């Protein structure tokens, strides 16, 4: 114990590996999460760039000799992508983007860095647990990446890993097969987000600063709180399902293998009696709340950026809060709308169709409140605000195109087509990712003490906006023509796809364009980090929430003195006040002063 105290008192002299590698400081951990997740995002994106070649020019050799050689003859025989490799890329693109990219960035990075700051805490409630959740996530990522190198390659049964296919591909009891490693990696990732969510929820409930009542919490914190509960309660069923699928693959059980299964003309030698539908239920019980795990932190970021750059309070703060809570609750009872075509029966379909229509209401309330927040504001069109503004219509398109999928009869036509891909990518790519970019540009000055380059930022924004739509808008058209989402040749061999085949090229070239545009972001990120303009104020955006009341960058322990909160989070342009923002920690003036009006 004495040794521990000794270390804590001299934490500035911590050795490099304690300070930056095995740190317990929530900000360092947040940055670790952020950088790792960005690398994974880029990697997952690259997988898709490869797939887009095969989709646009099916059967043609990849013209980049370096890549063909790197991937080897087994994956790219004669430079042409092998079907198995295409399936691996598809499965791993989804897995990496969702579980290793977006969630760790939205929850691990932004949640870790900002939640303690915004609630006025010195650190997370359990700093050591926080460190271990990052490292468990890291191990999960390494296992996932390692799965590319085992014989037979990585998992190739889609990111949903539906059995029986996933159990019998490849047929091997070894742990070192793509699918078994996928399951092992998922168990690590689930454990990581479980530890993280316990930490976030406890921090928000227990470590709120004096005066920071529930209705004074920034909306971002509310979003993270609800997200925490979703991760906490939705992930364990997938962990159970993952263990059972591992048992099926490695111990020869039949949790997901029905009786009388015939593979390749031969009856499978298993006891049978399992249910493939069981996996789908357990998977979607996680994966639908997961959608909200992806979107809620994004909404939180957008709310912060919009309030700051419209210089006025958010419209309908309380309805935002109640909507996000209701959304979180409802997200647990809509999962089977992913399964309308499994023959569950009309009664169950009707139930899930109804809950799906109900859950769209709070989403629409949130989006409407955010749009109405713009009304009458003197908007500052800086880079974070541009991304936040673009989030609104992009998420709107993603959300509204989801409604037909939520109706059981319309879903018969659209199920498993490119329409579905277009729908959820609008939510996650130009939706969530734009919000995350907004967050990076917005909080970069606080984290690094440097401002990101404005011109490069705007170039990044406009390029991304154009190319994102170039990729995903055609998907609706292709999907409505009935083209299935998992075709190796992009539909070339199907008659009904002939009229929309040209769109494959449009989408692919847009994707490659998007890749070029992201390079601008990468350059901007590192250039600004080392040579960017230094911020002169601790509060460069003139914001109101507590994270801006810290030194830049915040030291270990965050606040120079323990903050106290006197007002709500968005007291911008209070009539009669001397400046257009009233920070939450600024004490009231003497009674009768107009600055007090912001107090609720």
């Amino acid at each position, binding site marked *: *114990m004495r040794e521990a105290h000794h270390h804590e008192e001299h934490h*500035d002299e911590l050795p490099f590996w304690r300070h930056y590698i095995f740190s317990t400081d929530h900000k360092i951990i947040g940055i670790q999460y952020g950088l790792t997740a960005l690398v994974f995002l880029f990697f997952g994106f690259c997988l898709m760039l490869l797939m887009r070649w095969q989709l646009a020019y099916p059967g043609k050799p990849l013209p980049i000799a370096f890549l063909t050689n790197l991937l080897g003859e087994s994956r790219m025989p004669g430079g042409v992508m092998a079907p198995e490799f295409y399936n691996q890329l598809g499965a791993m693109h989804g897995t990496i983007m969702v579980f290793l990219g977006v969630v760790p960035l939205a929850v691990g990075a932004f949640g870790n860095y900002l939640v303690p700051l915004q609630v006025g805490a010195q*650190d997370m*409630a359990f700093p050591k647990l926080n460190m271990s959740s990052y490292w468990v996530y890291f191990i999960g990522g390494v296992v996932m990446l390692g799965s590319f190198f085992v014989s037979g390659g990585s998992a190739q049964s889609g990111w949903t890993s539906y059995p029986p296919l996933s159990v019998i591909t490849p047929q091997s009891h070894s742990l070192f097969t793509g699918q078994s490693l996928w399951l092992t990696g998922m168990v690590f990732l689930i454990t990581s987000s479980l530890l993280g969510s316990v930490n976030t929820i406890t921090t928000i409930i227990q470590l709120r600063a004096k005066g920071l009542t529930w209705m004074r919490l920034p909306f971002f914190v509310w979003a993270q709180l609800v997200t925490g509960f979703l991760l*906490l309660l939705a992930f364990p*069923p997938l962990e159970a399902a993952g*263990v059972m699928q591992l048992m099926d693959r490695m111990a020869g*059980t039949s949790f997901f293998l029905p009786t009388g299964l015939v593979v390749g003309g031969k009856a499978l030698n298993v006891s049978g009696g399992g249910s493939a539908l069981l996996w789908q239920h357990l998977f979607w*019980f996680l994966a639908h709340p997961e959608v909200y795990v992806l979107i809620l932190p994004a909404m939180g970021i957008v709310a912060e950026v919009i309030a700051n750059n419209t210089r006025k309070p958010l419209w309908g703060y309380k309805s935002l809060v109640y909507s996000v809570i209701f959304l979180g609750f409802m997200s647990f009872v809509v999962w089977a709308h992913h399964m309308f075509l499994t023959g569950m029966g009309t009664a169950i379909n009707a139930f899930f169709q109804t809950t799906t229509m109900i859950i769209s209401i709070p989403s629409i309330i949130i989006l409407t409140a955010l749009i109405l927040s713009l009304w009458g504001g003197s908007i500052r069109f800086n880079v974070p605000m541009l991304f936040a503004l673009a989030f609104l219509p992009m998420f709107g398109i993603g959300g509204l195109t989801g409604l037909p999928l939520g109706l059981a009869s319309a879903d018969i036509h659209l199920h498993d087509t490119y329409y579905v891909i277009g729908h959820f990518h609008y939510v996650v790519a130009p939706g969530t990712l734009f919000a995350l970019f907004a967050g990076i540009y917005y909080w970069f000055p606080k984290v690094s003490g440097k401002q990101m380059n404005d011109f490069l930022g705007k170039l990044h924004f406009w390029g991304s906006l154009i190319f994102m739509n170039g990729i995903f808008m055609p998907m609706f058209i292709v999907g409505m023509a009935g083209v299935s989402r998992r075709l190796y040749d992009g539909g070339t061999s199907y008659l009904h796809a002939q009229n929309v085949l040209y769109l494959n090229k449009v989408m692919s070239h847009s994707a490659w364009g998007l890749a070029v545009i992201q390079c601008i972001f990468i350059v901007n990120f590192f250039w600004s980090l080392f040579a960017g303009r230094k911020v002169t104020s601790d509060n460069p955006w003139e914001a109101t929430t507590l994270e801006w009341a810290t030194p830049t960058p915040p030291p270990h322990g965050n606040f120079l003195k323990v903050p106290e909160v006197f007002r709500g989070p968005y007291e911008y342009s209070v009539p009669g006040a001397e400046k257009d923002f009233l920070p939450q920690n600024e004490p009231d003036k003497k009674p009768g002063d107009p600055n007090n009006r912001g107090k609720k």
Partner: protein
Amino acid sequence: MSTAIEIPYNSTERPDTGLYNAKLGVWLFLASEVMLFGALFSTYVLLRTGADTWENGAQIGLSIPLATINTLVLIISSVTMVMSWASLKTKNFGKYKSYMGVTILCGVIFLVIKGFEYAHKFENGIWPSTSTFMAIYFTMTGLHGLHVIGGMIVNTYLWGPGAKMWQTDPERFTNRIEVAGLYWHFVDLVWIFLFPTLYLLPGK
């Protein structure tokens, strides 16, 4: 800058929530554990209702007497766990040591008996792949066994090296025992559900 970081409410309760941090943390963790085992029990229900026939655990070699002994062992361990916490509340560290020791010992007995049960099945050629029932049996009791082992590692740490905290921060140490106890009771509770589900329910 170099003042040590002191996370508030580590050992004292926050007035408006009435909880210290770890207690809230462990309840949240247990909520997720309920979902984990809930998914497994749901699996049992779904596969059983979908099956034409279902085995009766006792008839295919599950030993009700051994499981009954194990149930008693775990219940006793839960009681001693509470007693170890109560001993610390009354500042009796010696009694804490013995009660916690008994708790750990009960965990060992449980696992040894479980080990005999497993070995007996393997000898008779019964594996997880034998039937859906046995798949569920091995998966659920195996996962529960891992939870028992996890609890025992924590308890052993708190009985041995971790107990030094009693000298420096007795209040926080007492809280740790309470939190470990909440987890331990949960692990017992899972077994209380597993016992009838796997051993006692008739087949069909």
